């Protein structure tokens, strides 16, 4: 969670000693091959752009889609990055926390729709759905930390990671058994149906616009919380040095719980947004966005808040624009996401905005 952009001027310390080694071990072959691969991709893009032409509105639509996806990824990625910054563990079950929020939102939405509130006051309903999603996700996140992660805080690194994988599958299965396997359909409030036409004649679904605006608001709120409040200062202190922070009077347990709660609230909001945007939810909905969001967090530099936002948006754009740019079927968008991750990690193992200390953590 350290402030970003201090890494670009520093030179890796080990470059001065490498002269003692023969030249072929001094060259980073992996990077050269990867660079060649990147060149191939760029060449392919130029070729595609030269041979095929798409109208401007098409690009606008795709960029809009990318930003929408990116906003959701960024919100979920923030949860990963907050927890990672403090505990150095991947909360693999974070996507499932989001899924529970989406379900809670759905049930409140159905209740409001049955009570007629959806017709009479759609904005209030919208607010209630969001609140329900965020609260339930928060409770889920706190419970998860208490039951599965807290007892393992001092265990070897592999142990909490495996627990998190177990928790992810457990929550997915529990949701399937409790709420049932069939998909549930979100009814959109009237003010979210249809598209708005941006300048230049670019159509954009209203839910997409809602996601972009809401994620900006939530991210700004988070940034304020982490940088300007006492809680945020305590969180940053623990991220820097847990023991020193506790000696300074920071309650480590309380702050860790708070961190989980904040990350889960963001995930709950993301879950409800995904529900409105895709209009359907099921018990496995959290898994892939979760993995993608983690990818986004790693991409931006894990433990780094602006990095998670940037990573999410880059990933969303890559997924939305990649298939067109490379002229491949859109089913391969997951392949693009992971390829971007591998390429970034090859050149900057600490992520785009990660500090050099991120290398040690990784």
């Amino acid at each position, binding site marked *: 969670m350290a402030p970003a952009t201090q890494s670009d001027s520093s030179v890796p310390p080990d470059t001065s000693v490498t002269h003692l080694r023969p030249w072929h071990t001094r060259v980073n072959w992996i990077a050269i091959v990867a660079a060649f691969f990147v060149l191939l991709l760029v060449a392919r893009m130029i070729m595609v752009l030269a041979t095929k032409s798409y109208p401007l509105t098409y690009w606008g639509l795709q960029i809009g889609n990318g930003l929408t996806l990116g906003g959701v990824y960024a919100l979920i990625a923030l949860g990963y990055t907050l927890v990672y910054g403090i505990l150095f563990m991947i909360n693999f079950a974070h996507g499932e926390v989001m899924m529970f929020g989406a379900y809670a939102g759905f049930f409140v939405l159905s209740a409001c729709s049955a009570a007629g509130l959806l017709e009479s006051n759609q904005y209030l309903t919208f607010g209630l759905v969001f609140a329900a999603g965020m609260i339930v996700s928060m409770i889920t996140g706190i419970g998860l930390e208490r039951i599965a992660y807290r007892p393992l805080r*001092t265990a070897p690194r592999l142990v909490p990671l495996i627990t998190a994988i177990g928790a992810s599958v457990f929550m997915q*299965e529990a949701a399937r058994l*409790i709420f049932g396997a069939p998909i549930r359909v979100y009814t959109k409030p009237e003010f979210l149906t249809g598209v708005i036409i941006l300048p230049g004649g670019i159509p954009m679904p209203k839910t997409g616009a809602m996601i972009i605006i809401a994620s900006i608001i939530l991210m700004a709120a988070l940034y304020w919380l982490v940088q300007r409040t006492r809680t945020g200062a305590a969180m940053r202190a623990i991220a820097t040095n847990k023991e020193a922070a506790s000696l300074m009077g920071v309650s480590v347990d309380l702050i860790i719980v708070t961190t989980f709660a904040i990350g889960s609230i963001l995930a709950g909001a993301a879950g409800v947004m995904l529900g409105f945007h895709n209009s359907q939810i099921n018990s496995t909905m959290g898994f892939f966005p979760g993995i993608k969001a983690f990818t986004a967090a790693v991409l931006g530099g894990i433990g780094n808040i602006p990095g998670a936002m940037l990573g999410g948006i880059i990933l969303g754009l890559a997924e939305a624009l990649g298939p067109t740019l490379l002229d491949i079927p859109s089913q391969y968008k997951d392949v693009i996401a992971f390829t971007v991750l*591998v390429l970034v990690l090859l050149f900057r193992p600490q992520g785009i905005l990660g500090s050099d200390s991120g290398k040690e953590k990784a």
Partner: protein
Amino acid sequence: MKISDSLRSGLVTGIAFIFFILIGIYTTFEALTLSGLWLTVLGATASEIAAQTPTLTNQQFSRIFTVIAALVAGAVAARPSVKLGQGILRAAIALATAGAIVAIFLILMNWLYANGFNVSFVFEKLKEPTITALLFGQPPLIGGAIWVVLMTVGGAVGALLLFGWRALNLQKKGARSAGPGVVRGNQTRIIILAVLAAALLIAPLFLSVYWNQVLGSIGLFVLLGLGLNIVVGFAGLLDLGYVGFYAIGAYTMAVLTSPDYPFGWGFWLALPIAMIMAAIAGTLLGIPVLRLRGDYLAIVTLGFGEIIRIILKFNPYTGGPQGILNVAPPTITIPIIGVTIEFASSTAYWYLIFFACLIVAFVALRLNDSRLGRSWAAMREDEDASEAMGINTTHIKLLAFGLGAFFAGLGGAIYASRQQHIFPDDFTLLVSINALALIIIGGLGSIPGVIIGSVVLIGLPEILRPISDYRLLAYSALLIVMMLVRPAGLIPASRQQREFAERDPEMETVETT
């Protein structure tokens, strides 16, 4: 004795029972009459099992489950007590609380139904008849009271059992310390292993096709687990994309032997190619992740596994989502007579898998004790230190990835040939998680652990058919509980065992501060 402890464990137990109700363990619970007290339930169920079928029905399962859950909860609640009376009191208070919580929940649900709310819209398994049945067909308050009484009795019995077990254990310990300890020699172990191997060789001839298939599935997962164990257990590289190499082995076998493709090779010719292809893929994918550690490695390998599956799924050459049909079975031609035997039965496949497991287990055992195995252990413990000691970590990491993938390819090739048709969705992340779960439950780095893990995770669900719907839930719960209670696994490898034992006192001091 603090009453708040009992109340808290009662709260946890109550929530756990509500969870069981929500996930539908009681869906088929018929209305129990008042005579269905704990012991009667147990007795009746036991006689039903004995009389009717060797497998459990849903209802019997849910009854046994409830009884065991209440007994265990009682024993756990009574654990802090030393005196019998106090323990029983503790357990009774805790379980009465739990019973009251369940009762309040059921009464609330009943009230909701009575007032026209459709609870099953939210909680799918909570149909109205289920609630009525869970209230024993009585008016809500009486039904709730029965729950409290039954749970209290169950808790008390659980506490009694705990103290009985303790007394028994004390006696045993006394007896053991009196006489000289029995040291099981190497010879006895070899004899046991030989008997076991002989049983595994002969038994399939008498077992039904179904059981042969179950054995085969266990064997395939043993293969997969042994390979993954090299990567995760020996070298400490958390590889979540392991299923990708399994898929590559399977698809290579399928493409080379299926009549839909121009090759049309035999099984034995395609087998080494499949393994080599998987090993090459493993090494190639190992190169870009060489510099990554721990969590980053996990997510990137997971990505690779998904990439392989997606490419296989949307690529027309590998048959797309429909997969590949008609994979050739292995044949053996006896040279002098010229008779060709085709592997058609599941028994034959079992022998194939069994020998493959033996070979791979032998290789893994030898690897672990070799110079390479020790280098892996050193790297697993501290990568920088091992590099400073002159270990070429690049080299041994790639070897771990390659060897692990090599064995995954073997498993995949046999799988493809046994199924005779493969689909890309046979190779989801869940297979990786299954393999990981079984080596962790068995004990990371331990070869007998892999076998026990596969028997527990792959074999047990086959026996407990009624819980097949709860299989993944049980897996994941087991995984979490194992990590919390016994992170070294059921049969820990000696190295890991020492490691975890060393860490224990350290953990306690940290927690008390």
